[in-house]
């Protein structure tokens, strides 16, 4: 595609301009990686020794601090359970909103759209009180529910968009072929919205992985910390200030994101196309 597109204009000026503008960011990323393996004299830009000491957090835990692996596990649980919740509810709710002639359908559609645009921060105090009352404050379950609930309007809306692109004749044909509504959904409709499902899944997981505000507020304690909160507590600690350690953990933290993104980047684009086949 790029070959055909570049036929009516030269591509090298564009490449140069983009390179110039991207250079500062590239340099920053380069230093992020380089600094985690090296030490640099103060005032110098060129590193002078190679070391693994900034990665020591992987095998030793400083006293008074939670192990990186606990935080990683917490993040993993948080992101994946939240994703599972969002997927299962969006899959069914999206179908209902797209296909079923249910009462108050328009009201629900409007509600989903409104909630989608609702700023999370305004809910914090109310959610805090609710969590305290039901005893889920400082638990992963509590924050999972909150994050999932806040993701749902987006998830439902996206899935509804994907369901809308499946022609209803396919479902009718399935029903005529003798299949139950559930079987039609499971065998005929679901395979066709699979790109949407994958995209929403990856997107939710990444959202969960990078979520900071909600865990910071609702699960501040050490044993339920997620990585983002762990990282923040590291920089908030002005006793021992270690920028390279901070960078190493930062790199450790974004690696799964980069891998997932590289694996699924094509699928992620689907979400903004609304699932229509181009």
């Amino acid at each position, binding site marked *: 595609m790029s070959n055909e597109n570049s036929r009516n204009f030269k591509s090298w000026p564009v490449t140069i301009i983009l390179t110039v503008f991207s250079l500062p960011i590239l340099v920053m990323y380069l230093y992020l990686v380089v600094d985690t393996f090296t030490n640099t004299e103060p005032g110098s830009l060129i590193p002078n020794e190679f070391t693994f000491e900034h990665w020591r957090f992987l095998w030793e835990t400083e006293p008074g601090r939670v192990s990186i692996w606990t935080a990683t596990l917490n993040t993993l649980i948080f992101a994946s359970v939240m994703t599972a919740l969002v997927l299962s509810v969006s899959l069914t709710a999206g179908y209902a909103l797209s296909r079923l002639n249910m009462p108050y359908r328009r009201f629900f559609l409007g509600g989903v759209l409104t909630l989608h645009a609702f700023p999370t921060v305004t809910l914090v105090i109310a959610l805090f009180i609710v969590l305290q009352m039901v005893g889920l404050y400082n638990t992963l379950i509590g924050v999972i529910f909150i994050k999932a609930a806040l993701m749902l309007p987006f998830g439902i809306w996206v899935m509804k968009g994907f369901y809308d692109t499946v*022609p209803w*004749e*396919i479902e*009718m*044909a*399935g*029903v*005529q*072929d*003798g*299949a*139950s509504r559930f*079987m039609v959904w499971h*065998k*005929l409709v679901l*395979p*066709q919205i699979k790109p949407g499902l994958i995209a929403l899944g990856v997107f939710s997981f990444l959202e969960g992985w990078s979520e900071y505000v909600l865990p910071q507020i609702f699960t501040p304690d050490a044993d339920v910390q997620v990585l983002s909160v762990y990282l923040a507590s590291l920089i908030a600690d002005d006793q021992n200030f270690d920028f390279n350690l901070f960078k190493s953990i930062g790199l450790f933290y974004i690696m799964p994101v980069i891998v997932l993104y590289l694996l699924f980047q094509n699928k992620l684009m689907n979400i903004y196309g609304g699932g229509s086949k181009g």
Partner: protein
Amino acid sequence: MRILLDKFTKKFDDTVVINDMDLEIKDGELMALLGPSGCGKSTTLFSICGIYQCSGGRILFGDRDVSNVSSQQRNVGVVFQNYALYPHMSIYENIAFPLMVKKMDAAQIKKEVHAIAKLVHIGDLLERRPSQLSGGQQQRVALCRALVRRPDVLLLDEPLANLDAKLRLEMRSEIRRIQQETGITAILVTHDQVEAMSMCDRIALMDEGKVLQVTTPNDMYHNPQTDFVASFLGNPPIAFLEGEVAGNQVLLNGSQLKVALPSSIRQPDNGTKVRLGVRPELVGTDRGNAVAGRISFIETQGRENLYDLTLDNGAVLRSIQAVRSDISMGQTANWNIDTERVLVFDTNGQRLL
């Protein structure tokens, strides 16, 4: 299997789409539901297959009342206008799906699928995906999938509408062949009178939720009961002349031209207002009475030409004749109308016999 609609009524909320419709489709027959768009023919079809619930009356398959039976239990095969093939399945899986739902065993499914694919001539396409097939092939697959369960009735919803002209001709005879070889009772919904006439045993012509006439294509063409039926069938369409009865002739409105009434009809009273339906093949013949007019349009159709003859009162007669080089636009012509075969309607559109 015989299908019977008995006082069938369909409403959407308060809008009555079909009211008290009676229609019988005989066993093994291909019946066309023909009508303009919005006449209720697709609604009728979807009610027969159970996608729509009937609001009143009964639908009988043989002696079984299926009015309140769900689609899954009705045993109806449907071919949708856009074929509705399952895009993620191979052609084999598409055709096997209805059998798989029935939990038939794999060997039996394989046998049945291959048998039906052979009948419909798609035996070599079974490994492909729907997106790799042409429109005509997809149509055949849809037919296969509808037939493989051995349904009591096959419903075809505008099956040829998405095909190009050449394929349409081919599939027209193919659908007819397959229907006759399987001996299945079938209902074809179409707005194309050529399709209905060329494929079907009988036509039910519908308008505004009512069945106007049910008969064989030939009879419907030659003996339409109303002017609507007459105008719906035939290509190029029939032309109408308005006039008043004067003796055994009709004096055309705003003109001195007279056209004789067919001798076979009961003589209406003098002064009765009538509409004469004149088919294009009745103009320019070698018998009947001559009318004068001006050639206002010539359309080349290859073997024949279509001529429009504008009379002095502005009415236009169409004439289909072998290509002739002696006629050009704007010229006057004095052509015969074969009056014995002209159709006579009263002002309400009812045929006078």
